[in-house]
């Protein structure tokens, strides 16, 4: 019987670039930047890396397909490398593969790196392309990401009888909190505090989501080197061990899209992946046991319903938690402690590893006091790629012993 990978893998080092409109940097530059930080943190030589996984999503404006961009850019010497792609869970998939490679005993030291260069498209927002397949081009709605996710708000408001102006106020608070956290983070893309007044007065992007309900579209790269706990302890005897407690993925089966059993107001894969992750990590009461988290706030409403889908807030109870400051930096379960996708930025193929980087830094207490989560033991990360009705979700939990 499979028992998962809890405690079988340790994070030896991590690196993450400043996210943002990196007009001066190519995807290759970003890879070098994150990798150098990661390798330095791990304290090993490049030749010690036995295998690697590269995550990138958009082929069109990025490095291209295959694992070659990683190998050639970093000059990795003929080692096995695989490219992972799974929408916004792409980087977490690279991380998961690296963890599995170590847990399986196939390799001792493995690199996972996620990179995305989005600001060479020439326009705001994400490129469309054939991401949903050629058939979708013939029959799919002419949609964008904000419009897809905005529908959560209309469905949620109807389901819970929550007036739209109150929902708007709550999701405004979600964004205000992330902006406040990002003001303290020099690597974040958007570092200005915002007010409720500003959020509510912002231009409408896709009803009912305004400009400040949408995350930044950024360039960036993040990387992790993982190994066995034994090797980590040997290489870093004086540092707390950060171990992987769970990495889980759940993928829509088509039910939300085609079967009439979905309310349009929640993410079924998030509910499933988080349950499995808690099980793998041995977490029984996530609301109490999880110290902090980075969730996939591509839009404020996404974060809002995700609180419920992660089984942190009761169903229909996200409003109360948000408005009471439960997820604020000084709240009971700080969320988006580095600014989240909202403000740290969202280079698709790098985001999962960026979230892990945020948790890793917190667990090692490397961040300044002003944004340090006190007594953090368990950090959760959550990615969601696709659309509310058809998506890929990853949930990872890492912890300090």
């Amino acid at each position, binding site marked *: 019987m499979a028992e998962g990978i809890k405690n079988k893998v340790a994070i030896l080092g991590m690196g993450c670039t400043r996210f943002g409109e990196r007009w001066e940097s190519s995807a290759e530059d970003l890879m070098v930047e994150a990798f150098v930080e990661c390798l330095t943190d791990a304290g090993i030589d490049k030749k010690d890396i036995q295998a690697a996984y590269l995550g990138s999503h958009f082929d069109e404006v990025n490095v291209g397909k295959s694992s070659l961009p990683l190998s050639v850019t970093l000059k990795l010497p003929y080692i096995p490398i695989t490219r992972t792609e799974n929408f916004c869970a792409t980087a977490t998939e690279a991380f998961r593969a690296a963890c599995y490679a170590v847990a399986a005993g196939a390799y001792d030291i493995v690199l996972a790196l996620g990179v995305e260069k989005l600001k060479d*498209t*020439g*326009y*705001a*927002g994400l*490129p*469309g*392309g*054939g991401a949903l397949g*050629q*058939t979708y*081009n*013939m*029959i*799919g*709605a*002419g*949609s*964008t990401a*904000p*419009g*897809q996710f*905005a*529908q*959560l708000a*209309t*469905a949620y*408001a*109807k389901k819970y009888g929550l007036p739209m102006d109150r929902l708007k106020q709550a999701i405004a608070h979600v964004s205000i909190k992330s902006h406040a956290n990002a003001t303290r983070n020099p690597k974040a893309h958007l570092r200005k505090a915002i007010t409720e007044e500003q959020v509510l007065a912002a*231009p*409408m*992007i*896709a*009803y*009912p*989501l305004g400009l400040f309900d949408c995350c930044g579209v950024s360039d960036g790269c993040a990387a992790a080197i993982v190994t066995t706990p034994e090797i980590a302890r040997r290489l870093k005897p004086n540092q707390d061990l950060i171990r992987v407690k769970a990495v889980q993925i759940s993928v829509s*089966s*088509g*039910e939300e*899209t*085609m*079967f*009439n059993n979905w*309310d*349009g*107001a929640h993410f079924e894969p998030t509910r499933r992946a988080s349950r499995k992750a808690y099980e793998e990590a041995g977490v029984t009461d996530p609301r109490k046991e999880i110290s902090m988290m980075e969730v996939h706030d591509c839009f404020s409403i996404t974060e809002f319903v995700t609180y419920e889908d992660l089984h942190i807030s009761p169903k229909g109870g996200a409003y109360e938690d948000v408005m009471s400051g439960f997820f604020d930096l000084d709240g009971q379960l700080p969320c988006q402690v580095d600014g989240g996708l909202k403000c740290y930025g969202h280079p698709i193929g790098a985001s999962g590893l960026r979230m892990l980087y945020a948790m890793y830094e917190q667990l090692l207490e490397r961040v300044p006091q002003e944004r340090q989560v006190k007594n953090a033991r368990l950090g959760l990360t959550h990615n969601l790629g696709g*659309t509310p*009705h058809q998506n890929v979700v990853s949930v990872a939990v890492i912890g300090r012993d």
Partner: protein
Amino acid sequence: MAGIVSCGAYAPRYRLKREKIFTAMGWMNPANRANARGDKAVANFDEDSLTMAVAAGRQALSGLDRAEVGGVYFASTTMPYKERLNAGIICGALGLTDQVRAADFSGGLKAGTSALLAALEGVEAKRLNNLVVCAADCRLGAPASVQEMVFGDAAAAAVVGSENVIAELRGSFSTTHDFVDHYRGQAAVFDRQWEDRWIRDQGYGLMIPEAVRGLLAAAGLDLTAFSKVIYPCRYGAERKRINKLLGITPEMDQSTLLAEIGECGTPQPLVMLAAALEEAQPGDRILVVGFGNGCDAIHLQVTDRIKTGRGGTGLSGSLANKAELDSYEKYLVWRNILPGDLGLRAEEDLWTRWSLLWRNHKAVLGLFGSKCLKCGTVQFPPQRICVNPDCGAVDEMTDYPFADKIGRISSYTGDNLAASYNPPAIYGQVEFEEGGKFLFDFTDCDLDSLAVGQRVGFSFRRKYYDAKRDIVGYFWKAVPLKEVD
């Protein structure tokens, strides 16, 4: 017996006040003030002659068994394809079987009546039955032209068969003259016309009487035997002169709907016929004349079956379902007369994969999904493995038509980021009342009027246009219905 079994007519929702056109372009053609009255029906940005023909055809087919339909004749001078059977696309959208006759009729404006006659005669000869005759046009006049002002977009359809006819074919008379009043060459975008006086005096003035008299002579009837005379001629004074000459009384003179729709081309006589049939009584004789490079005159007599209501109320329904198009410039952009900038996002090159379309043509053109024979779950797009998690049957599916079902909005948005000719792009999740769901584009609606739970119908529309390869892609959109509960 050959005749019309049912009919439908369609005018697009948007109406542009001609006064607005004159305000914008009158400086260039002050004499157009005389035409600056009433509304011009304007196809939405996602409509064309073909989609309007489908709308009228669906009305005409309402309540009839699609399996009984023998084919589609499509008449238009503004078909989206020169090569690729336009009527074939309509067959797909109407959900017909493959073993049907389909043909495009074009060239002159009387193609509408010519298609109707061809269908009537095919049925009369017992070679064909239950043909859907669709006529639609979306003709363009250059900015500041008279045509821009008077033309309007519309469609009409009639099912022609041998049983249950509401109006029976009694006779016909045709003329053909290479009399060029209006014309468009191979590459023309805009209609061109010769002098009004020439069209009026030598065209309508001589050719309508010639056709009417020819038909009456062959039938051995006097015009007083007819309740309605239908003929296109927008020139008011000339119409009065022709009416007086032939003895057409005001009661017999069917309105051209110039003030409500505009001169609509090939569907003109059929739109007027649909209007006449909405009010016709058993025994009424109707004379329908199509005009354009000659005339077709068709003699129809209304039967008792008219009482079944198969004359339809599609036209009056369409006329009532209207929204003012608040901007002349919007009309110009929709018709690509003014090349508006949709932004870089719209410039992604999305190929039409014809082989892929062929494999999916029932879903794309006909909105067919599948129904699981094991558990009864209906699903779209068609699946091989049942989506019901408690079923999962493999290859136990039958085709299931969604196009005529009613749906309910379960979520929606108005997207200002998406490239759209009518922003915000409105779309949302729709659950069909009888099962199945899909994320549809919405059309013919305003964001402010939407609510979760609202009922929607479905309309065949242009999904995209690939300007580089001159390809129109079609699919279905949800059209919110008025009532909410």
